[in-house]
């Protein structure tokens, strides 16, 4: 448990046997800032381009932890120790235990316990995770290659059926954010499995009972159709292996039955019963999505399997049994949201912090038997707050079918192996660079080592359980690394590299422009595209490149151009576009000598340009604030850029992301804040990390900010619509290959990248430094 402060309300949700505590804290962490120097009258050539500083920033984080009820006092001690805000008078509690432990809590904490309705909280929590966490939902398939089939978030999450299997079973139909109805329930639930199981097998613990069950043969205890019929009941098409009567064979006093067999029979009996009732309710209400939750399910493959089987059987495949990665926290999340209601939680979005969250199966005794016995807490989730709600990029053709990631590593074992190894091999280098990025810090080495260890452990977890954090993708691997770096106060390990490269590239800008201008139109078009691609070679994230860059510091733009395999082609034929939206990739040569000449050409043709850069740092990707400075410098040298900025033909926006990849699903709806929201960035909520939010006061790029200020109230989505964006350029491996390779947009799009990874090049049928140049025109 991180030693965080607890300034807000803290809200335990007390379930039957586990106490879930949700608390809100502000987390202090370091963020890297860049600030433009005042260069008036100074020799620009010998000064660094801008100042880098690391500052403390405070962001909001939601923590969810679990305690066994027996640890309730420890839990309360924990709350008490962390309850620093004396203004807190009320603690929100839900679950049956809220009634049971009310007095204890009030006495111990001196706070008034506000009991919140269990189901209201559960559903609030459920809506919350369904909306905010991609890959929250999965179907379970035991006998397929990937047990966990993660579902793409559908923009419309309603209506659905929520079947909560705690001690008993509650079946709730949820129709909208505020409208839900308890439509039924059953007393045969987790408590029945546990209680009856304990009586039958003398095994006390729920997990142990499940383990027994997974080893048993129910056919020794159950009467099957074939025991009655001798085979199948053919007239009804009932297979001989179906259970005709649960425990039908134990109707004798003189036979012993094994614990395992009885536990298994009990498990089948209860799962089938719940599945059947759920299907009957789903049918009555005409619903085809059923989410299962409660401690009976809670990531246990055994019960997910039997429930899935039951739903398939009773619905004849028409209804799908779905599970939630974070279902154990729903009540606590809901209770928290209830408490935060005056805060209007809908104005925020939240993202899972991979560094602080344990994975899906971490509670399973099979996977980590030690983890449970070690302490009262054994599973946690952390979510970071993003200050604004998110919407889809309006240019996506079909947001409901859009999947950002190109390869699903949960599915593709070979690719998974490769990438995990790739990230493992790169890890030492990343750790070294992180340490080197803070030469003045005494504990940088130590923190870098901690980072290395943490990320290494995450990678090992993912090797064992690729499904631990939802669908495993190159993007999630990259993001997890960023989260871990942030966790150990390495907000921007590449800041100095970027600073230097930006400085060097700026010096070449004018000569590159001059040489481009000397070419005739056709040659120039090719040169521009080639420049775009060559610039994209400069990617510290790619091991092949960082090796070259480390060993050949003189490696430049021309050398990069010569390394390129194949040719680009021009897309600037035909009438000019109205507005182009460009997602930039790397700092330095990439943005300055690759992207900007291209931007300039577009501007000269009368095309407006929206240049979107990451809000927070990731590798050597150019950040929004860096792009402001760089643009300012270029504008000082280049009249085309200068006037475009002045006339608002060139707009700089932030993506809201701190990932080298890009998820077009979540785009900021409203501006971030007064000053810096030059145009309400977009954001992908789950990639959002602690360093994403740039403070309003941080920027000192007055000129540019002023230019952008007229757009304050407009969201990027609005901007894109308003400017009638008809061309989207997505640059870089992370944004155009690992993600969005298959994205279909409603306007013309260009995805370009240089393949800086020989394995991937091989897979795509090319060589290293091959070029991906994917130009798509939507069919009318």
């Amino acid at each position, binding site marked *: 448990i991180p030693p965080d402060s607890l300034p807000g309300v803290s809200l335990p949700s007390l379930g*039957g*046997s586990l106490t879930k505590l949700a608390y809100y804290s502000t987390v202090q962490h370091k963020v890297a800032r860049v600030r433009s120097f005042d260069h008036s009258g100074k020799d620009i050539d010998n000064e660094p381009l801008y100042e880098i500083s690391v500052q403390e920033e405070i962001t909001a984080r939601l923590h969810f932890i679990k305690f066994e009820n027996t640890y309730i006092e420890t839990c309360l001690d924990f709350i008490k120790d962390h309850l620093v805000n004396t203004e807190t008078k009320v603690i929100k509690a839900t679950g*049956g235990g809220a*009634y049971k432990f009310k007095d204890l809590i009030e006495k111990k904490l001196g706070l008034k316990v506000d009991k919140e*309705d269990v*189901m*209201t909280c559960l559903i609030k929590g459920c809506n919350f995770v369904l909306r905010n966490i991609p890959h929250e939902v999965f179907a379970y398939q035991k006998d397929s290659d990937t047990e966990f089939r993660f579902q793409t978030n559908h923009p419309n999450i309603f209506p659905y059926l929520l079947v909560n299997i*705690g*001690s*008993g079973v*509650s079946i709730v139909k949820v129709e909208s954010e505020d409208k839900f109805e*308890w439509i039924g*329930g*059953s*007393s*045969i*639930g*987790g*408590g*029945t499995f*546990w*209680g*009856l199981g*304990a*009586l*039958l097998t003398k095994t*006390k613990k729920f997990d142990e009972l499940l383990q027994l069950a997974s080893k048993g043969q129910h056919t020794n205890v*159950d*009467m099957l*159709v074939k025991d*009655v*019929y*001798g*085979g199948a*009941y053919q*007239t*009804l098409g009932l297979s001989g292996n*179906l*259970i*005709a*009567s*649960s*425990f*039908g*064979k*134990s*109707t*004798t*006093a*003189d036979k012993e*039955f094994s614990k395992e067999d009885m536990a298994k029979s009990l498990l089948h*009996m209860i799962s*089938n*019963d719940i599945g*059947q*009732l759920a299907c*009957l*309710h789903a049918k*009555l209400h005409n619903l085809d999505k059923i989410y299962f939750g409660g401690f009976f399910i809670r990531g246990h493959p055994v019960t997910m399997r039997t429930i899935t089987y039951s739903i398939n059987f*009773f619905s004849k495949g028409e209804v799908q049994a779905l599970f939630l990665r974070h279902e154990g926290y729903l009540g606590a999340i809901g209770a928290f949201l209830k408490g935060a209601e005056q805060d209007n939680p809908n104005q925020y979005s939240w993202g899972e912090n991979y560094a602080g969250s344990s994975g899906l199966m971490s509670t399973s005794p099979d996977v980590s038997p030690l983890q449970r016995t070690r302490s009262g807490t054994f599973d946690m989730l952390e979510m970071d707050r993003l200050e604004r709600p998110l919407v889809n990029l309006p240019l996506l053709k079909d947001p409901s079918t859009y999947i950002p990631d190109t390869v699903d590593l949960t599915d593709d074992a070979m690719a998974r192996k490769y990438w995990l190894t790739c990230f493992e091999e790169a890890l030492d280098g990343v750790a070294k660079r992180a340490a080197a990025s803070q030469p003045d810090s005494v504990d940088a080495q130590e923190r870098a080592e901690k980072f290395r260890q943490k990320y290494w452990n995450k990678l090992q977890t993912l090797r064992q359980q690729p499904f631990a954090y939802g669908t495993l993708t190159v993007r999630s691997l990259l993001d997890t690394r960023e989260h871990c770096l942030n966790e150990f106060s390495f907000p921007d390990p590449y800041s100095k590299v970027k600073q230097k490269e930006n400085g060097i590239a700026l010096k070449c800008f004018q000569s590159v422009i001059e040489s481009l201008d000397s070419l005739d139109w056709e040659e120039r078009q090719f040169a521009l595209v080639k420049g775009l691609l060559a610039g994209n070679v400069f990617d510290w994230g790619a091991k092949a490149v960082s090796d070259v860059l480390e060993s050949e510091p003189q490696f430049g733009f021309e050398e990069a151009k010569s390394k390129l395999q194949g040719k680009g082609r021009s897309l600037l034929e035909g009438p000019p576009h109205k507005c182009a939206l460009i997602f930039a990739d790397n700092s330095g040569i990439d943005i300055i000598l690759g992207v900007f000449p291209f931007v300039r050409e577009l501007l000269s043709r009368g095309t407006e340009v929206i240049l979107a850069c990451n809000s927070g740092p990731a590798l050597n990707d150019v950040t929004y604030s860096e792009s402001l400075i760089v643009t300012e410098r270029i504008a000082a040298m280049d009249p085309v850029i200068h006037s475009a900025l002045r006339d608002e033909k060139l707009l700089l926006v932030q993506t809201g992301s701190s990932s080298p990849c890009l998820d077009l699903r979540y785009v900021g709806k409203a501006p971030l804040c007064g000053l810096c929201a030059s145009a309400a960035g977009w954001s992908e909520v789950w990639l959002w990390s602690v360093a994403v939010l740039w403070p309003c006061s941080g920027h000192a790029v007055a000129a540019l900010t002023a230019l952008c200020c007229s757009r304050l109230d407009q969201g990027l989505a609005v901007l894109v619509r308003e400017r009638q964006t008809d061309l989207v350029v997505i640059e870089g491996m992370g944004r155009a290959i690992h993600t969005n390779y298959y994205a279909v947009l409603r306007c013309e799009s260009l995805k370009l990248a240089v393949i800086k990874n020989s394995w991937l090049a091989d897979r795509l049928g090319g060589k290293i430094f091959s070029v991906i140049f994917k130009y798509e025109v939507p069919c009318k």
Partner: protein
Amino acid sequence: MRASPCSTLICLQIRNFTKIQDPVFQRNFVFPWFGLDIGGTLVKLVYFEPKDITAEEEEEEVENLKSIRKYLTSNVAYGSTGIRDVHLELRDLTLCGRKGNLHFIRFPTHDMPAFIQMGSEKHFSSLHTTLCATGGGAYKFEQDFRTMGDLELCKLDELDCLIKGVLYIDSVGFNGHSECYYFENPTDAERCQKLPFNLENPYPLLLVNIGSGVSILAVYSKDNYKRVTGTSLGGGTFFGLCCLLTGCSTFEEALEMASHGDSTKVDKLVRDIYGGDYERFGLPGWAVASSFGNMMSKEKRESVSKEDLARATLITITNNIGSIARMCALNENINRVVFVGNFLRINTISMRLLAYALDYWSKGQLKALFLEHEGYFGAVGALLGLLDSA
């Protein structure tokens, strides 16, 4: 709904055996008349005892047949496990033109081999009759009947038989009384009473047959029905769990224990969790929130009696059946639910609970009905299957 090719077949067989001319066929339909329903736990046998045997007939009657009749009608128990439910006997019934009494006999399915053996010893096969049987055992024991008993079973579908049996018995009544009944004021323990119900216009009805397992049928007319669903949590589950939990060895014993137990010590009620009613969802405090939920706690496990456990098992299974039946009734838009099956034999607790639960949770929309001959309808249907073909 389902044509029974078997009945026509058996008819031909009987004609061949008896070589009887059509006009007098019915009077001379070969005896004995049996209907057999071989379930997972119990075998149900109905036997028609002709009371209008003429002296002439009596003389012609083979010794075997006579001895079978005597054996069945003069005893109320057969071996250590066979029992004749004398109180269910239907007297002065006219069936296929013959007058007689219908007897209801049951024995455990695991004694089936002994039964076949007995049939073989009594040279049943020499009677040149064919035995009509339904239930899973008709399939399972077919080969045994053939090899051990030299008997060819005529297998009839159990659901066809069940419905046929229900409709028939209800139509003839129970010795002048109503076969069908319900509980008035099921929600009031004091005023609750059993009252006859007129099932003259039975359709549509939901038929819930609770044997070892449970089958639920929606019946729209005498030959239009469908199996809606079923559950494996049935009488066998109650009895099986009771054996494991209490060490009892008979269904009667299990029920007796249950009648003296207190399930609220075993189950976690809504009020145990919420301190009272759960108003948000309109759940009363007395409702069971988690069956056996209190047994998660070691202390409580040690403080409950076998009787409490038996009671809780009974309540759990019964409530669950009620719940599934109610959902099916809603889905099928049927408001009369008829519960049959041997789980309900001498089981007033379950019947009242079903009546109560259906009434309470449907806010009076659904009515639970019961039939006096509980588990014998399949066997009756099998007997009718034999005679129908004539």
